[in-house]
């Protein structure tokens, strides 16, 4: 008996998993001893498309399985029973061992078929909910509190306490909201969970609903995640059919319904009060707090709002007990955290690690280090709200307190790795441009303050900066941080403040020397051809503006008036004859 699973999450599909799937379908047609199914993202996005082969109880995980490789695997491994080692990622009898990882949230992603509820139940799904319904609300909350679970959306507030506040609000109607409006550039943890294990989120919401006394839930999912939405819809429909979502769940008096609300593309709607406004059909703009959502949230009813990852952890905590969870992690940060590794890293993808693991282990251990073996410069954590942690702090343990101390934040879990070719001023400018565009525009500091900061940063990257710019940036950044209405504005200056803190010399180089050390800022770089040129004409052919002239086997020259600084020549030259 052979089982084949194809990872068809968005990352897999983007790499061509659908074609692999189709190819395999045609290959196995009519063979009843070979089954083919789909699964979510296992986290090794750099090797997609990935397929899993299970032959007589042994699992083989293959990467880079395009149509050709699929045929190869079919012929060589399935038919001739010869594993192809160069494509093999992992081999196991039961579970894959993911070195240095501990999978709680991602335990089912890439393992089960997310479109079949029975598979979720078969691996212990909805056990947590069953268990919760057998104990009192107070006991559920106490379990979550004891587990030490903190909000995985970014702020890291105690989930149990949040639930307790909502429970203590007296009202005949309460809501549970799952915040699946994952908007940080470079973050895709929530998407993978929703695509790979949607039931875990539903289970978490229902446990929360039972604990706080709510009977209705909303999943606010960004519309840019069509696959996640489709899988969620399917999961809810299946759970309803099974009587897990709906009335009198598992024979109890507890009833719970779940709706999906698709966002309309505004980043700020990930802010909880803006999100609720958006569900209500209003323009998504943050509201003043207090009153907090636990007192007056969606439609002015007490509301508990948690992020996808937080809710996905809850089922596991209930079935395995608070102790099992709080054993993991550091004193104040318990459990595991999923990170999305992106940027200039070798093994880009999703990892789930125990809190407290050193940053170095994540980037160099699991992540495999920097692409092309370049020099590691910094890691941007927490998206546009976060900050840059420099190479010198690579030993920082990954937990809420330690990361915050560096000036960055754990945030939702995006890690964008930067190498020596990244200009830190440009990175700051990129993120401020993002928050400026995505600011809802409500409060003065966020609307105008970010714009003014962006102008200064742009000025610096264009070589028009003046010495005072750094001080005015710091001053303005602190004002925006202190005085903005919501989290978006309050954290928007973090990329600026951390880059100035750790990479002030780069700012000074831009301003004083009119140089971009990393060679990124176009206005500040000039491409020149050195004597190392052998006249191969490759750069001449690559130049889109015909700025390079020179005869074969003779030194080439760049006409600076025509050069648009695209870097095509630099990337083409095999002899390192072009400098910038």
């Amino acid at each position: 008996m052979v089982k084949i699973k194809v990872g068809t999450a968005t990352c897999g599909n983007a790499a061509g998993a659908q074609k692999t799937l189709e190819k395999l379908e045609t290959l196995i047609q009519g063979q009843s001893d070979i089954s083919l199914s789909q699964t979510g993202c296992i986290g090794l996005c750099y090797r997609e498309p990935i397929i899993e082969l299970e032959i007589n109880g042994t699992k083989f995980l293959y990467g880079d399985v395009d149509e050709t490789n699929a045929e190869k695997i079919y012929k060589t491994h399935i038919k001739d029973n010869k594993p192809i080692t160069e494509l093999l990622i992992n081999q196991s009898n039961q579970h894959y061992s993911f070195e240095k990882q501990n999978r709680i949230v991602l335990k089912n992603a890439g393992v089960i078929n997310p479109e079949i509820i029975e598979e979720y139940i078969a691996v212990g799904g909805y056990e947590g909910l069953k268990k919760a319904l057998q104990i009192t609300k107070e006991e559920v909350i106490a379990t979550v509190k004891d587990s030490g679970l903190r909000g995985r959306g970014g702020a890291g507030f105690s989930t149990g306490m949040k639930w307790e506040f909502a429970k203590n609000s007296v009202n005949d109607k309460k809501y549970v909201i799952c915040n699946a409006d994952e908007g940080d550039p470079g973050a895709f943890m929530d998407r993978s969970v929703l695509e790979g294990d949607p039931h875990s989120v539903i289970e978490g919401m229902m446990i929360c609903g039972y604990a706080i006394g709510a009977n209705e839930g909303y999943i606010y999912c960004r519309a840019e995640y069509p696959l996640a939405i489709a899988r969620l819809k399917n999961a809810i429909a299946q759970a309803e059919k099974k009587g897990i979502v709906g009335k009198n769940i598992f024979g109890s008096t507890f009833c719970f319904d779940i709706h999906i609300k698709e966002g309309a593309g505004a980043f700020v709607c990930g802010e909880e009060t803006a999100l609720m406004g958006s569900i209500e059909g209003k323009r998504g703009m943050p509201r003043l707090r207090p009153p907090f959502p636990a007192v007056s949230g969606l439609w002015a009813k007490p509301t508990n709002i948690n992020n996808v990852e937080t809710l996905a952890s809850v089922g596991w905590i209930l079935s395995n007990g608070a102790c099992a969870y709080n054993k993991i992690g550091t004193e104040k940060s318990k459990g595991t955290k999923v990170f999305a590794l992106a940027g200039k890293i070798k093994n880009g993808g999703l990892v789930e690690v125990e809190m407290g693991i050193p940053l170095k282990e994540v980037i160099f251990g699991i992540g495999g280090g920097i692409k092309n073996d370049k020099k590691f410069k910094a890691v941007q954590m927490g998206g546009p709200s976060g900050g840059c942690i420099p190479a010198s702090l690579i030993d920082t343990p990954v937990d809420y307190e330690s990361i915050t101390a560096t000036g960055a934040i754990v945030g939702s879990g995006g890690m964008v790795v930067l190498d020596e070719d990244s200009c830190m001023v440009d990175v700051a400018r990129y993120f401020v441009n993002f928050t400026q565009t995505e600011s809802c525009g409500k409060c003065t500091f966020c609307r105008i303050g970010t714009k003014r900061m962006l102008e200064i940063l742009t000025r610096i990257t264009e070589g028009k900066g003046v010495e005072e710019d750094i001080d005015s940036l710091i001053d303005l950044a602190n004002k925006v941080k202190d005085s903005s209405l919501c989290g978006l504005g309050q954290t928007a200056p973090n990329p600026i403040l951390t880059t100035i803190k750790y990479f002030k010399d780069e700012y000074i180089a831009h301003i004083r020397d009119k140089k971009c050390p990393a060679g990124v800022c176009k206005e500040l770089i000039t491409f020149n051809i050195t004597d190392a040129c052998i006249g191969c004409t490759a750069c001449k052919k690559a130049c889109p503006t015909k700025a390079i002239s020179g005869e074969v086997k003779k030194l080439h020259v760049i006409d600076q008036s025509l050069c648009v600084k695209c870097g095509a020549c630099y990337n083409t030259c095999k002899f390192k004859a072009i400098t910038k």
Partner: protein
Amino acid sequence: MEKELVVCKIDGIEIFCENDWTIMKAAQTANIQVPALCYTPDLSVVGSCRICVVEIEGETILQPSCSTLVKNNMVIYTHSEKVNYARKIVLEMILSQHLADCLVCDASGECLLEKYSYDFGATGKMFQKAQFNPIKHGDLPDNSLIKFERTKCILCGKCIRACNEWTHKDALSFVDKGEMMRVSTLYDRSLEDNGECIFCGNCINVCPTGALWEKEAAGKGRFPDIRKIKTICPYCGVGCGIEVSAKGNSIIKVRGDMDSPVSKGRLCIKGSFGFDFVNSPQRLVKPLIRNSKGELEETNMIDALIYIKNKIDEIKRNNGIFAGLASARCTNEDNYIFQKFMRSVLHTDNVDHCARICHSPSVSGLNMTLGHAAMTNPIEDIDAIDCFFVIGSNMTSTHPVISWRMIRRIKEGALLILVDPKKSPLSKYATMHLQLNPGTDMALLYAMMKIIIDEGMQDTDMLNSRCEGVDEFIAEINKLNLDDMIQQTGLDEGDVRLATRLFAISGASSMYYAMGVTQHVFGTGNVVALADLALLCGKIGQGPTGINPLRGQNNVQGACDMGALTGVLPGYRSVDNKADNKELSELWGADLPEKKGLTLNEIMHEAAEGNIDFLYIMGENPVLSDPDSNSIIKALEKTDFVVVQDIFLTETAAYADVILPATSFAEKDGTFTNTERRVQRVRKVIDPPSKDMLDDYQIIYRLAELCGANWKYNSWIDVFEEIRKAAPIYSHIDPNKFDDKEFFWPGDILGDSVKRLHQGEFSRGRAKLIYFPLPEYPYKATPSFPFLLIIGRLYEHYHTGTMTRKTKGIEKLQSEPFVYINPKDAIKLHIKDNDFVKLISDNGEIELKCKLTLDVKPGNLYTTFHFHEAVANKLTNKRILDAQSKMAAMKVVMVNIIRK
């Protein structure tokens, strides 16, 4: 949240506050001014501008005072160096996006951005100035009333909130995000085309800069050349406070008075824009006398008055009959003097005014059941009501500011039972809309009372301890047949039953009604039935519950209070009551008529018969407003001598022998009494257009002096002091204290205003339940007149249009009359939108355009009486009058509709 007393210290001053106060509120109580751009009391707090930040001891971050609550022992600094610098940064940021030029801005001098920039030394030079962006800063398509310059907008969002929270509309919204965020309309359409804007102008009023402005006021004047004077809106009976800006002798603009306890800054389109009439070139400035050729000839005031005086003498010698119509538009002083002149100089009780054809059934009905004829509750009681019973009132059009307050309460959870044959903007807020057949109100009310008695929902305490005539009344109700009554209304029994239960069972239920109840020949019966229902359920005389007739005109309540009603002396005393008569004849030093005279409709009827010799009309336009227009014209033609005193040459003035130019509300001092019995001060804003012009009361006063009276009034205050003596319900009102005190009538024994009537005891002692026999349904369609035409009002226009139609912008929005018809009927008659049709009643016919709408039921039609182009009152008649109030059937008339 339980309230606790907390003490905080702001700028060194200890302030005792409650724990739900914001720092802003606490500071205001100590008169410490904290700047604010996005904050206005009475709008939700958004905390977005960040200019109101303050420093709190022990906290590193500055906190916005508009949204931070005080805590015990909090120490706050509102003007520390850190705070002032933060504010400067905020202002510099805003100024960097503010592309306007203060040098040529209308708002300069009133603009908060300008003021704060000065206060905190912001120059707009700290940051790079933003570039003009046509999408963000460009103009929206034009409209005729409101100017919106987005280069001046600071995105505080107050206009959006005022639109949404005050008027419950969504004409404006934020669109786009980040730096591109701007205030716009749906699909960037013009305000006229977006279907939501009602041009109330409240967005202009709350705008802290000059971004939103009255189109016509732009460039006409600014501080310090303009002066602002607070007075009262001259339109409907709500009595909103207005702040009139004038330059020289012209009104530049009008804004809602934020300090008005009635309206708190809110206005409707009429109050915000309907003031072009004051400076209109069509104003009468010279008296006109009709010469022997029948032409009107200009003269001066004294000659005109002597002319009238001579005529009076001549008619007196011939024992002719005098009659006069006072005005609900004029001040209390004007009306008081008018009726005093009629009664004590001309010795006639033939004095009346248009209240006769609006709320006279309320006067008769409520007097006979409760003892006072007015709203039992102040407008502010709306905020405490659980269930509104609104019957015969199109209040979003006629009393917009009250309706908005009611809608706000409904949004908070109160129920609304709406009884109206036609759909109105209020329908969408109604818990139940009983769309009954026109004129079947009494059948509905009796059906409700029968259900209450059947189901035992009556308030026996109220009935036993505070009412009389209970057993007889219940016996009569028991005799009625529920099915017949419900069938007459055309409603579903289940609906009626549910509505009845909601009204009877809700804690604080209150009734609000208007012309739909009164303008019938059984109007008094309708009002009495309403009072009976309220008494039966105990929803009156206890806290915020009550029965509230919404008065139509700015001073119709006052005119009634002043005795400008046949048989009614000031303060609702009777001409035929000997003691009352004696007291006033002593006060006035003249004998008064002892018998009740003729009412308005009777005067007109007699005049048409040639039985009236002298008719003095002050500020009314009966040709358009009274039933059976053709007969009014005939009456005016047949009367020997007609004096019309008005601000315009109205349709009525055209038939006068002498026309006297009067001053408008903006040119006079005095008082108006609004619908809730609140007496408010009217202040002179500008001088009359001509020096020869006098206030209404002064004209009559001078005429009286010519006729031999010796009255001696130096100012309106002298008149008011006499009113206090003549009308005991006004005796507690000190005319010198309007600036700092609210006055309602009546006063209690301590001299304090009584806001709620009938608390503890009814004005007449025990309230009386009265059974009026259910009338035979009068509006039965016949083959020749198969449609029921309902006559009502538009939001944009007021009464006969003499004032609102002078404002170009308003006139552009609603420039012609329409009759509204249900598409089902229209299809049968082959009528399309905008077709010309002819409406024919047994009294006359008019031609106007037709509009199809689902708002009216099949078999019904709807039109308005604002337009002289199609005088709806040509269709009405006054052949039959209500026995008690002499009201004619003006609300519903049977007609036929024919396509032209």
